[in-house]
Protein backbone atom coordinates (compact mmCIF):
# COMPACT_ATOMS: atom_id res chain seq x y z
CA UNK A 1 0.00 0.00 0.00
CA UNK A 2 2.67 2.48 1.05
CA UNK A 3 4.73 1.52 -2.00
CA UNK A 4 1.72 2.18 -4.24
CA UNK A 5 1.09 5.59 -2.69
CA UNK A 6 4.78 6.40 -3.04
CA UNK A 7 4.74 5.45 -6.71
CA UNK A 8 1.61 7.58 -7.19
CA UNK A 9 3.23 10.63 -5.59
CA UNK A 10 6.48 10.22 -7.54
CA UNK A 11 4.51 9.74 -10.79
CA UNK A 12 2.50 12.91 -10.09
CA UNK A 13 5.65 14.93 -9.47
CA UNK A 14 7.18 13.46 -12.63
CA UNK A 15 4.09 14.42 -14.65
CA UNK A 16 4.19 17.99 -13.34
CA UNK A 17 7.91 18.37 -14.04
CA UNK A 18 7.58 16.82 -17.51
CA UNK A 19 4.70 19.08 -18.60
CA UNK A 20 6.39 22.12 -17.04
CA UNK A 21 9.56 21.50 -19.03
CA UNK A 22 7.94 20.49 -22.32
CA UNK A 23 5.24 23.19 -22.32
CA UNK A 24 7.14 25.98 -20.60
CA UNK A 25 4.84 26.22 -17.60
CA UNK A 26 6.21 28.10 -14.61
CA UNK A 27 5.03 30.69 -12.12
CA UNK A 28 5.22 34.17 -13.68
CA UNK A 29 8.21 35.92 -12.20
CA UNK A 30 9.54 39.21 -13.49
CA UNK A 31 11.47 41.69 -11.41
CA UNK A 32 11.51 44.90 -13.42
CA UNK A 33 11.37 48.35 -11.86
CA UNK A 34 9.44 51.29 -13.30
CA UNK A 35 8.79 54.75 -11.88
CA UNK A 36 5.05 54.91 -11.05
CA UNK A 37 5.09 58.72 -10.90
CA UNK A 38 6.09 59.04 -14.56
CA UNK A 39 4.13 56.10 -15.88
CA UNK A 40 1.71 58.09 -18.04
CA UNK A 41 4.16 60.75 -19.20
CA UNK A 42 6.55 58.85 -21.43
CA UNK A 43 7.98 55.46 -22.14
CA UNK A 44 6.39 52.08 -22.50
CA UNK A 45 3.18 52.77 -20.60
CA UNK A 46 2.37 56.17 -22.10
CA UNK A 47 -1.18 56.31 -23.44
CA UNK A 48 -0.29 55.83 -27.10
CA UNK A 49 1.58 52.63 -26.26
CA UNK A 50 -1.25 50.97 -24.35
CA UNK A 51 -3.13 48.03 -25.83
CA UNK A 52 -1.91 45.29 -28.11
CA UNK A 53 0.87 45.67 -30.64
CA UNK A 54 2.45 43.22 -33.05
CA UNK A 55 6.18 43.73 -33.51
CA UNK A 56 8.02 43.29 -36.80
CA UNK A 57 9.11 39.80 -35.73
CA UNK A 58 5.45 38.84 -35.16
CA UNK A 59 5.59 38.82 -31.37
CA UNK A 60 2.46 40.09 -29.64
CA UNK A 61 2.79 42.36 -26.60
CA UNK A 62 -0.09 43.82 -24.63
CA UNK A 63 0.47 46.72 -22.25
CA UNK A 64 -2.17 47.63 -19.70
CA UNK A 65 -2.30 50.14 -16.87
CA UNK A 66 -4.21 49.13 -13.76
CA UNK A 67 -5.35 52.20 -11.88
CA UNK A 68 -8.10 53.19 -9.46
CA UNK A 69 -10.64 52.08 -10.67
CA UNK A 70 -10.16 50.92 -14.23
CA UNK A 71 -7.93 49.07 -16.61
CA UNK A 72 -6.66 51.06 -19.55
CA UNK A 73 -7.52 50.07 -22.23
CA UNK A 74 -10.87 48.62 -21.24
CA UNK A 75 -10.97 46.14 -24.13
CA UNK A 76 -7.82 44.15 -24.78
CA UNK A 77 -7.57 42.26 -28.09
CA UNK A 78 -5.35 39.17 -28.15
CA UNK A 79 -4.87 36.43 -30.75
CA UNK A 80 -5.97 32.84 -30.40
CA UNK A 81 -3.27 30.19 -30.44
CA UNK A 82 -0.27 32.56 -30.50
CA UNK A 83 2.16 33.39 -27.69
CA UNK A 84 1.24 36.67 -26.03
CA UNK A 85 3.21 38.73 -23.53
CA UNK A 86 1.00 40.64 -21.12
CA UNK A 87 2.62 43.57 -19.29
CA UNK A 88 0.90 45.48 -16.50
CA UNK A 89 1.86 48.49 -14.40
CA UNK A 90 0.14 50.53 -11.70
CA UNK A 91 0.60 54.24 -10.94
CA UNK A 92 -1.24 54.24 -7.60
CA UNK A 93 -1.93 51.24 -5.36
CA UNK A 94 -1.57 47.46 -5.45
CA UNK A 95 -3.96 45.81 -7.88
CA UNK A 96 -4.36 42.23 -9.04
CA UNK A 97 -5.99 40.56 -11.99
CA UNK A 98 -7.04 37.28 -13.44
CA UNK A 99 -8.46 36.36 -16.82
CA UNK A 100 -11.38 34.01 -16.43
CA UNK A 101 -11.02 30.57 -17.99
CA UNK A 102 -7.24 30.90 -18.25
CA UNK A 103 -4.29 30.50 -15.90
CA UNK A 104 -3.39 34.21 -16.08
CA UNK A 105 -3.33 35.54 -12.53
CA UNK A 106 -0.93 38.14 -11.17
CA UNK A 107 -0.52 41.06 -8.81
CA UNK A 108 0.26 44.53 -10.12
CA UNK A 109 2.47 46.42 -7.69
CA UNK A 110 3.38 50.12 -8.11
CA UNK A 111 7.03 50.43 -9.05
CA UNK A 112 7.20 47.08 -10.83
CA UNK A 113 6.11 45.68 -14.20
CA UNK A 114 4.01 42.51 -13.89
CA UNK A 115 4.60 40.28 -16.91
CA UNK A 116 2.83 37.07 -17.91
CA UNK A 117 3.45 34.93 -20.99
CA UNK A 118 0.48 32.91 -22.15
CA UNK A 119 -1.42 31.52 -25.10
CA UNK A 120 -5.19 31.80 -25.38
CA UNK A 121 -6.89 28.58 -26.41
CA UNK A 122 -10.45 29.64 -27.30
CA UNK A 123 -11.91 32.72 -28.93
CA UNK A 124 -14.41 34.92 -27.15
CA UNK A 125 -14.72 37.70 -24.60
CA UNK A 126 -13.12 36.95 -21.25
CA UNK A 127 -13.70 38.95 -18.10
CA UNK A 128 -10.62 40.39 -16.42
CA UNK A 129 -11.54 41.75 -12.96
CA UNK A 130 -9.27 43.31 -10.38
CA UNK A 131 -8.92 40.74 -7.61
CA UNK A 132 -7.02 42.79 -5.04
CA UNK A 133 -9.15 45.23 -3.04
CA UNK A 134 -7.89 48.62 -4.18
CA UNK A 135 -10.47 51.06 -2.82
CA UNK A 136 -14.17 51.90 -2.83
CA UNK A 137 -14.48 51.45 -6.61
CA UNK A 138 -12.73 48.08 -6.64
CA UNK A 139 -15.84 46.19 -7.72
CA UNK A 140 -16.18 48.43 -10.79
CA UNK A 141 -12.64 47.72 -11.95
CA UNK A 142 -12.72 45.19 -14.77
CA UNK A 143 -11.83 44.85 -18.43
CA UNK A 144 -12.61 42.55 -21.33
CA UNK A 145 -9.98 40.39 -23.01
CA UNK A 146 -11.17 39.75 -26.54
CA UNK A 147 -9.58 36.60 -27.94
CA UNK A 148 -9.69 36.90 -31.73
CA UNK A 149 -9.32 34.25 -34.41
CA UNK A 150 -6.47 34.64 -36.88
CA UNK A 151 -8.72 36.20 -39.55
CA UNK A 152 -9.92 38.88 -37.10
CA UNK A 153 -6.62 39.66 -35.42
CA UNK A 154 -5.31 42.21 -37.90
CA UNK A 155 -2.75 44.83 -36.89
CA UNK A 156 -2.94 48.26 -38.56
CA UNK A 157 -0.02 50.01 -40.24
CA UNK A 158 1.50 50.85 -36.82
CA UNK A 159 1.20 47.26 -35.65
CA UNK A 160 -1.63 48.08 -33.28
CA UNK A 161 -4.65 45.82 -32.91
CA UNK A 162 -8.14 46.93 -31.90
CA UNK A 163 -11.18 45.08 -30.59
CA UNK A 164 -13.42 44.10 -33.47
CA UNK A 165 -16.83 44.64 -31.95
CA UNK A 166 -18.71 45.81 -28.95
CA UNK A 167 -19.13 43.32 -26.17
Amino acid at each position, binding site marked *: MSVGVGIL*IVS*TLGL*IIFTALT*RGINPPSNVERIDPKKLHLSGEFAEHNLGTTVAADGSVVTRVIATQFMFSPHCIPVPQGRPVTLRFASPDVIHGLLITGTNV*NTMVIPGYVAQVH*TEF*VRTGNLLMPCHEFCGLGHSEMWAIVQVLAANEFKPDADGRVHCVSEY
Partner: protein
Amino acid sequence: MSNDQHSFDSDSSEVMDEIDDEALAAAMRVVPLGAGVLAGGAVALLVLGYIAVYLLVFLPRGVVG
Protein backbone atom coordinates in the same frame (compact mmCIF):
# COMPACT_ATOMS: atom_id res chain seq x y z
CA MET B 1 -24.48 14.33 46.70
CA SER B 2 -26.32 11.09 47.04
CA ASN B 3 -26.17 10.63 43.25
CA ASP B 4 -22.41 11.15 43.26
CA GLN B 5 -22.05 8.61 45.99
CA HIS B 6 -24.17 6.17 44.07
CA SER B 7 -22.12 6.74 40.95
CA PHE B 8 -18.91 6.15 42.87
CA ASP B 9 -20.28 2.96 44.26
CA SER B 10 -21.29 1.61 40.86
CA ASP B 11 -17.87 2.47 39.34
CA SER B 12 -16.02 0.77 42.13
CA SER B 13 -18.12 -2.33 41.69
CA GLU B 14 -17.11 -2.80 38.04
CA VAL B 15 -14.84 -5.67 37.26
CA MET B 16 -11.77 -5.01 35.19
CA ASP B 17 -11.95 -6.46 31.69
CA GLU B 18 -9.98 -9.55 31.35
CA ILE B 19 -7.28 -9.15 28.72
CA ASP B 20 -6.50 -12.11 26.62
CA ASP B 21 -2.87 -11.73 25.61
CA GLU B 22 -3.34 -13.65 22.37
CA ALA B 23 -6.36 -11.58 21.36
CA LEU B 24 -4.45 -8.40 22.19
CA ALA B 25 -1.50 -9.51 20.09
CA ALA B 26 -3.82 -10.36 17.20
CA ALA B 27 -5.52 -6.97 17.42
CA MET B 28 -2.20 -5.16 17.52
CA ARG B 29 -1.12 -6.95 14.38
CA VAL B 30 -4.17 -5.80 12.45
CA VAL B 31 -4.92 -2.31 13.80
CA PRO B 32 -1.71 -0.58 12.61
CA LEU B 33 -2.20 -2.13 9.19
CA GLY B 34 -5.73 -0.76 9.03
CA ALA B 35 -4.50 2.68 10.07
CA GLY B 36 -1.89 2.50 7.31
CA VAL B 37 -4.45 1.47 4.72
CA LEU B 38 -6.78 4.29 5.80
CA ALA B 39 -4.00 6.90 5.71
CA GLY B 40 -2.63 5.57 2.42
CA GLY B 41 -6.07 5.53 0.85
CA ALA B 42 -6.72 9.09 1.96
CA VAL B 43 -3.40 10.28 0.52
CA ALA B 44 -4.03 8.35 -2.71
CA LEU B 45 -7.46 9.97 -3.13
CA LEU B 46 -5.93 13.40 -2.50
CA VAL B 47 -3.18 12.86 -5.08
CA LEU B 48 -5.65 11.44 -7.62
CA GLY B 49 -7.86 14.52 -7.13
CA TYR B 50 -4.82 16.74 -7.69
CA ILE B 51 -3.95 14.87 -10.90
CA ALA B 52 -7.55 15.17 -12.11
CA VAL B 53 -7.60 18.96 -11.58
CA TYR B 54 -4.14 19.29 -13.14
CA LEU B 55 -5.05 17.32 -16.28
CA LEU B 56 -8.69 18.35 -16.71
CA VAL B 57 -8.61 22.00 -15.58
CA PHE B 58 -5.11 23.46 -15.40
CA LEU B 59 -3.56 22.17 -18.64
CA PRO B 60 -6.62 22.85 -20.88
CA ARG B 61 -6.61 26.49 -19.72
CA GLY B 62 -3.39 27.09 -21.60
CA VAL B 63 0.22 27.59 -20.70
CA VAL B 64 1.37 30.40 -18.46
CA GLY B 65 4.80 31.56 -17.47
